[in-house]
């Protein structure tokens, strides 16, 4: 039994496997399939200061080894979360992390400040890179200045672990990572989805209501691994890797590339129990390879 304990900037996890925002609801939707407390953390769906209806249907298109989505941050707002959802999830014995989105630094900060008051939410993940809403942070996430402006504003009011989720739709994700590190981020998670598009040639219409959306799934894994590898060399804060992880071998690939922990996203749609399988699989792999702890593989790449 290898030691899977992982610490991300003070955030203690029983294992390095978390579920990605927007792919696991608030966790409770999956309680019939797994024991939620068997995974290291659950990043609940994107929350904004004010309620959002999200984009029109259709919001999803299947692609080769992946999918596009343009949900557009549909959520009932941070107040609803605090009053109605938080009570349902606060006693789940794992790290319940809230993904926070916004349209301007002030909104991000106010939303983060409210969540800062919730005892059982030890961390937030700032989504500065949602490709699916005109002001969903994509604008912030693709420039160092924009990214810093959001992180600085949030850092001022948020006292717990601050994770910043980065977009791969940039020329240099390393530069963005360094800039959010400078602005006070405790960790970075990457990658968010790649901006893509799919067309129904019979209808001569985009398959998604807003034309473009975010690509996820195994198709993007090579891009995600590359980004994790680049960023982990560029910054000193922990890197959380995600992008097409379907099994423990994928997770270990990200960890060798430099990820201290991983997030399972789209795979939750294919197998609602995959997150626990990945956690157990990592343990078995470490055992069969004579590794005592995850530390023996994180960033341990020969090249």
């Amino acid at each position, binding site marked *: 039994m290898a030691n899977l304990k992982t610490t991300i900037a003070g955030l203690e996890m029983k294992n390095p496997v978390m579920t990605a925002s*927007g*792919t*696991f*609801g608030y966790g409770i*939707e*999956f309680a*019939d*399939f797994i024991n939620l407390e068997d995974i290291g953390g659950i990043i609940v*769906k994107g929350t904004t200061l004010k309620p959002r*209806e*999200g984009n*029109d*249907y*259709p*919001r*999803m*298109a*299947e*692609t*080769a*080894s*992946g*999918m596009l*989505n343009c*949900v557009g941050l*549909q959520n009932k707002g941070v107040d609803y979360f605090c009053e109605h959802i938080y009570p349902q999830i606060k006693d789940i014995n794992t790290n319940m992390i809230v993904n926070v989105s916004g349209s301007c630094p002030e909104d991000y900060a106010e939303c983060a400040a409210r969540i800062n008051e919730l005892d059982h939410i030890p961390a937030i993940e700032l989504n500065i890179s949602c490709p699916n809403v005109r002001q969903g942070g994509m604008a912030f996430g693709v420039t160092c200045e924009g990214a810093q402006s959001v992180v600085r504003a949030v850092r001022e009011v948020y006292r717990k672990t601050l994770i910043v989720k980065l977009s791969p739709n940039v020329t240099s994700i390393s530069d963005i990572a360094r800039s959010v590190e400078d602005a006070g981020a405790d960790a970075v998670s990457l990658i968010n989805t790649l901006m893509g598009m799919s067309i129904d040639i019979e209808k001569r219409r985009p398959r998604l209501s807003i034309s473009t959306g975010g690509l996820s*799934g*195994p198709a993007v894994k090579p891009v995600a691994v590359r980004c994790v590898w680049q960023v982990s060399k560029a910054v000193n804060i922990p890197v959380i890797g995600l992008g097409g992880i379907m099994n423990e071998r994928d997770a270990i690939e990200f960890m060798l590339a430099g990820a201290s922990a991983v997030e399972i996203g*789209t795979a*939750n*749609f*294919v*197998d*609602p*129990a995959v997150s626990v399988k990945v956690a157990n699989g990592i343990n078995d792999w470490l055992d069969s390879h004579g590794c005592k702890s995850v530390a023996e593989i994180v960033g341990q790449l020969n090249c």
Partner: protein
Amino acid sequence: MYNLTDMKKYIKDLKVAEVEYPHARYVLLKLTADEPLPEMMPGQFVEVKVENSPSTFLRRPISINYVDRNSNQLWLLVQTVGEGTKALARLQEGDILNVVFPLGNGFSPVCREGEQVLLVGGGVGVAPLLMYGEYLKENGAKPVFLLGARSKADLLELDLFRQIGDVYITTEDASEGEKGFVTQHSVLNREHFDRISTCGPKPMMMAVAKFAKANDIPCEVSLENMMACGLGACLCCVEKTVKGNVCVCKEGPVFNIEELTWQI
């Protein structure tokens, strides 16, 4: 409504017990398990994992056609349209199919002893009406089926429907029953119905909803929005309702037309 929030969901490897091909473009998969199949309600659906189909990444949602408690079988009636469903049609007796189920809310329970409920199905949309019809009959209601299809050959499980209640048919080519669309069938003028449940192509369901609204008949429709997770997590399959965007996979697939914002 049934207390669906308490209904446990499962992920199971089910065994293909029988495979039937009612028609070139359809396959009827009869799945079983060693242990008794869990409780399922009419109108609910399952999400199946398709193996050996390179272009199929996500699960495929399929409505529950019937649950045979005697043989412990779950029936899935599938129309083979894309690569995913074609791969399902290749399944053979003894193969394993991984299924996440039961999902969604399902049709309304019996409201009143003896109520006459019209079940309108189009194409493969007739699938969930078989289980629902039997449920209604067993619980003191009177199901009446109005089934539409392009042609006689596309009419599925007719014999089974006839064992449950009266069956009225329309085909576009007049090869069986009355010619035209379900909403043109004469029975709609002759008979009184307490309520309507319908499943099939959206244009058909909208026509049925329009008829119901015009005649003040309560009507529920089963939607088939494209979905990914089937669990209310991804928010991809939303339908605009009077309450805003809601997940068809969780709040639905069955909605009372009063909840929807259809322009009818």
